[in-house]
């Protein structure tokens, strides 16, 4: 029982990352009709926003400490960060410690700007082009983006810690009446789950309850009619692209403490997020979120020993197996509309 609760928790946590990426992907596809293979790269850039901010906060000057030596035996240089120097070690240290949450503020303008540039500079010219061309050009862009990151940050993962207060884990088991240590879960992952829920809720509320969102939804359903009504739908779609980029970026920022960011983490998520989007049904936002959580939970269950001992290797293929079964039984995914991307 406790094992099952634990895996459901795990699944929800994994699922929230999948759902966030798939949500952004679906936003772009639903509004602009573009298959964006660079979406994983946006997620990766988000994570590197966190890395960059923590590097900026850790900018430091060097003083030579004659009492210490470096690896070659020369007098060692000791680094003091400017932040600590200006604000005092306590305040400065706290700011450095909170680099990842602060990166949320830092990343939103950065990601929206990247989204705007991408849409206006590149994607705009591909609305009328075949999907295959869109895939190719965004795939090329993804490679370029990740190579740029690799050039500046190297190929190794870069550790980016959560604030001190969120390290360690929370004992659910005790709360539910199990033995201590039966169900423990890291604080930061709980934060991630809550954060994802807020973002997903926010995006839905934005589309559902604002005039802007209403117009965008109308545009998704019938672009031409909306334009005939004299509404500049293109501008709004550009903004939606920026929002989608920001959602991917935020997912990345908050993911940085879970797994150290590296330059190819976007590609690792890309295929998976496409599977999620398609299982959810192309163009359906609730479908993407639902499929994200569903696949996350199933993946977690498949990695349980009890199941692996019956079906060896099942955790390697579960996502794909589920995708195949769903697509064969429900032709347009869980919540897809007819006629989308079927040609």
């Amino acid at each position: 029982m406790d094992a099952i609760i634990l895996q459901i928790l795990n699944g929800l946590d994994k699922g929230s990352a999948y759902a966030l990426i798939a949500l952004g992907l679906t936003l772009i596809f639903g509004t602009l009709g573009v298959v964006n293979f660079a979406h994983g790269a946006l997620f990766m850039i988000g994570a590197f926003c966190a890395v960059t901010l923590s590097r900026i906060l850790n900018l430091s000057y060097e003083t030579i400490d004659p009492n210490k030596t470096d690896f070659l035996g020369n007098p060692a240089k000791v680094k003091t960060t400017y932040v600590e120097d200006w604000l005092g070690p306590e305040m400065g240290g706290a700011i450095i410690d909170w680099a990842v949450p602060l990166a949320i503020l830092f990343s939103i303008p950065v990601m929206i700007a990247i989204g705007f540039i991408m849409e206006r500079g590149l994607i705009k010219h591909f609305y009328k082009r075949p999907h295959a061309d869109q895939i190719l050009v965004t795939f090329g862009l993804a490679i370029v983006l990740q190579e740029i990151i690799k050039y500046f940050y190297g190929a190794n993962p870069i550790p980016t810690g959560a604030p001190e207060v969120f390290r360690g884990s929370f004992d659910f088991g005790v709360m539910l009446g199990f033995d201590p240590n039966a169900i423990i879960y890291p604080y930061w992952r709980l934060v991630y789950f809550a954060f994802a829920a807020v973002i997903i809720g926010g995006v839905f509320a934005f589309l559902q309850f604002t005039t802007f969102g209403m117009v965008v939804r109308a545009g998704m359903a019938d672009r031409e009619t909306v334009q005939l009504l004299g509404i500049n739908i293109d501008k709004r779609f550009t903004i939606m692209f920026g929002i989608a980029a920001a959602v991917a970026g935020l997912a990345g920022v908050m993911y940085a403490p879970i797994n150290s960011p590296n330059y190819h983490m976007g590609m690792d998520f890309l295929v998976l997020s496409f599977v999620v989007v398609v299982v959810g049904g192309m163009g359906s936002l609730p479908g993407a979120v639902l499929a994200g959580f569903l696949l996350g939970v199933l993946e977690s269950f498949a990695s349980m020993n009890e199941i692996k001992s019956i079906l060896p290797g099942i955790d390697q293929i579960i996502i794909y197996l589920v995708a195949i079964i769903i697509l064969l039984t429900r032709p347009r995914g869980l919540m897809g509309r007819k006629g989308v991307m079927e040609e």
Partner: protein
Amino acid sequence: MLGLNKRDFSLLLIVAVLALCAPFILNPFPADSAMAQFNAGYPDLMQRFAIYGIFAIGFNILFGLTGYLSFGHAAFLGVGSYSAVWMFKLLSMNVIPAILLSVVVAGLFSLLIGFISLRRSGIYFSILTLAFAQMSFNLAYSVLTPITNGETGLQLTLDDPRILGVSRTEDGSIPVTNLFGIEMREFTTLNFGNWSFDISAGYYLCAVLMLLSFYIAIRIFRSPFGMMLRAIKSNNTRMTYTGLNARPYALAAFVISGMYAGLAGGLLASMDPLAGAERMQWTASGEVVLMTILGGAGTLIGPVLGAGFIKYFENIFSKINDGVLHSWFSFMPDGIENLMVTLVHPFVGKGWHLTLGLLFMLVVIFLPGGLVEGGQRIARLFRRKKPDDAKKSTQSTPAE
């Protein structure tokens, strides 16, 4: 001739001449010059050009004609390689049975996957093929290790129970793959002054099979069957209304292109008896998609060009290191030399991915029809006289 019209026959002839003279054409620079870095005429790369050409030609039969975008074709190539290596291990080092088996096995495997995947169309079809291929890759890497040798890849060993032939040669090494005694790895180097050219037995086998595949592809493109496939792409619904069931045709195209992939996989293993699981990864499937679209989907020669383009980058640009850069720019003053090296450095060697990504984008943005369109534009520049005519007859079908 050969059942082809004049245009197609001359195209085939050009490709044949290019393929047969490739060892000379691809080595345009003297062996000891600084530009020799760009020579591509060594056996392994030439073989890869031909093999991936076959793979892309086959993929184009499915994608270029029917518009079904498969994201799992690498699985068939991988299965082909595994069957070929097993044939070497169990039966004989002759490449013929290995290649035959790899084509048959890949055909059967693609029949199975195609039968299921073709129940859906559009991106749903793409994801189904992707899912099957990723499952094959993941299993081949882990659970199926007894058959695939997992991470290391399936290799020949000294104690293979080879029925026809010996487990090891007299001098105690593993026998090499051959075609009735002609060793695939054998090559002759011809030196003309400073130029040197490698004439490789393995390459010519690949080239001949590539030409054969190319010829079959032309025949398919021009046949009533090919017309039927195009009909699936242009208007599937109308085709259904006329009382034709499109599925068997699409499935036939899928299996044919799967067999092409199997042939490519079998050839890869014949040139170098190793079958690695990475051949089945989604990136490998993506690569053939890129090759086809980059060259020009739906055109006859495009996929071959695209395959050559990508393999050239992978093998030539990745080998340019700082030392080589310095030798190129050594004629310049020191300061400028270092500046040039710094400027070029991010794009070569370990940065070859960056160059490839940038070129993808440039080609897709400016040449929607792929490299073939680029060629046509250049050709049109030289033949200003009848631009309309050229446009009409050679226009490529855009990919969908």
